[in-house]
């Protein structure tokens, strides 16, 4: 029982980070039907930004987090503008391959500029462990969970309640009709990239605090896992991405807990295969039936 609870806490902490990342995949897919493979690398940029501003400008946690979100939002908008927008009307495979190219560019660019070695993320918040009946939870885990949940609630409010959120939903279901009511499609897509990338930036700073180490290739595996999370939840669905993220986090820690650490990545991909076979639209995905 204790182990189970302990793994639940560990799984939720990790899962909330996957959830933040998965949101970016799902929103971008929802609006331009692109799997943005460079999304994991935005998360890496967020972690590096956090590393620099904490070490050199002595930012505190909140400012490091907010500035990383801002920088990542701007990076996401620039990437969309330079790399994806010119391909808006090309076949989808062209944009997909470009996304992989952008991903390599960011990974290798950062390795070239700052070296590919692993750095230790500054421990800006001193870790304190709390014990409840044999279950241990750290202040950092609480911070990650609370921050991630707040961001997800905020995102949900933006999507559901604001004018730009409605515009995002309108563009994702019917771009032509959206233009006919006066929505600027390009601006809406930029806004979507900004939102998704800012979530990735926050996840980057949080993972730095949690795992304590960052490197230019750190975005690859979590990026793919978050993509799996988005597919599990139903790609295009925002609540689905959050749920999928938590599920993948729980699965990974669960597999580790039963002593199969070496297979934790394989387990995630196995889930992807199973989901694609039996529930291809994901948990919250809509089966697209078009009525003409």
């Amino acid at each position, binding site marked *: 029982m204790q182990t189970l609870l302990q793994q639940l806490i560990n799984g939720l902490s990790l899962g909330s980070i996957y959830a933040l990342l998965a949101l970016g995949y799902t929103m971008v897919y929802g609006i331009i039907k692109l799997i943005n493979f460079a999304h994991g690398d935005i998360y890496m940029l967020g972690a590096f930004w956090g590393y620099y501003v904490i070490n050199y400008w002595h930012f505190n946690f909140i400012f490091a987090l907010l500035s990383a979100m801002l920088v990542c939002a701007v990076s996401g908008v620039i990437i969309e503008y330079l790399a994806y927008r010119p391909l808006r009307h090309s076949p989808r495979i062209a944009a997909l391959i470009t996304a992989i190219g952008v991903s390599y560019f960011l990974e290798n660019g950062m390795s070239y500029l700052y070296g590919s070695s692993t750095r230790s993320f500054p421990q800006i918040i001193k870790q304190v462990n709390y014990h409840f009946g044999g279950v241990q939870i750290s202040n950092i885990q609480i911070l990650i969970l609370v921050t991630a949940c707040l961001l997800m609630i905020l995102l949900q409010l933006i999507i559901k309640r604001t004018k730009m959120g409605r515009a995002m*939903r309108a563009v994702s279901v019917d771009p032509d009709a959206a233009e*006919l009511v006066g*929505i600027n499609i390009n601006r809406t897509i930029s806004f979507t990239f900004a939102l998704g990338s800012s979530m990735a930036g926050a996840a980057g700073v949080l993972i730095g605090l949690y795992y304590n180490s960052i490197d230019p290739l750190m975005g690859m595996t979590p990026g793919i896992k978050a993509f799996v999370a988005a597919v599990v939840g139903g790609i295009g669905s925002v609540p689905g991405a959050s749920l999928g993220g938590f599920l993948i986090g729980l699965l990974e820690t669960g597999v580790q807990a039963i002593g199969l650490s070496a297979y934790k990545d394989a387990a995630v991909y196995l889930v992807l295969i199973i989901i694609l076979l039996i529930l291809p639209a994901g948990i919250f995905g809509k089966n697209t039936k078009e009525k003409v």
Partner: protein
Amino acid sequence: MAMLSVDNLAVNYGVITAVKGVSFEINEGEIVSLIGANGAGKTTILKTISGLLKPVSGTITYEGKQIQKEKAPKIVAQGISQVPEGRHIFPGLTVKENLQMGAFLQSNHQQISDTFGEIYKRFPILKQRENQDAATLSGGEQQMLAMGRALMSKPKLILLDEPSMGLAPIFINEIFDIIKAIQEQGTTVLLIEQNAKKALSIADRGYVLASGEVKLTGTGQELLANADVQKAYLGG
């Protein structure tokens, strides 16, 4: 001077020339109907006026200004609103949210809520279904929602693309009554229809299109009485 005048408009749809040198005019306060068979280029003309397609040649002049190069959001902002063929409401958004989208470019909250009142008065069913997912509405209700959404922008000119398509006869009559009411409240109407008889009976003037060209023009009554029109479009 005409409110909207289309001069020698030519538009390609992919590699096909869908519209070749069409000219027509709409005066303020009129209902003008474009009729013609499938593939005559009617929808292409509307999409070009709305800014979704760009012409290869020709001009579209609206209130004295050429607008054929402007993008769709700019054109809505100038008071031209389109109800697209097949309705194109936003599924997954509620009825109310769909209507809010129609007022996307409006910033005066008082005016938006007044317009909401007018739309709900004209389409009481939308008020009843306010919080329902728009995708759950029937075809006729979706058509009313699409019209309501277009009216939310307070257009001076409304473009209707096949509003009666796929609707039950009872709804068809209702839709045409509403179109007439929209005109009576001061909005100019450009109506595209395959239901030529209905369309011409409420239209002040009409243009008959075939293979991308204007073949015939006249008042609604003249066209209804025309032997060629009767033979080709009215099943007479």
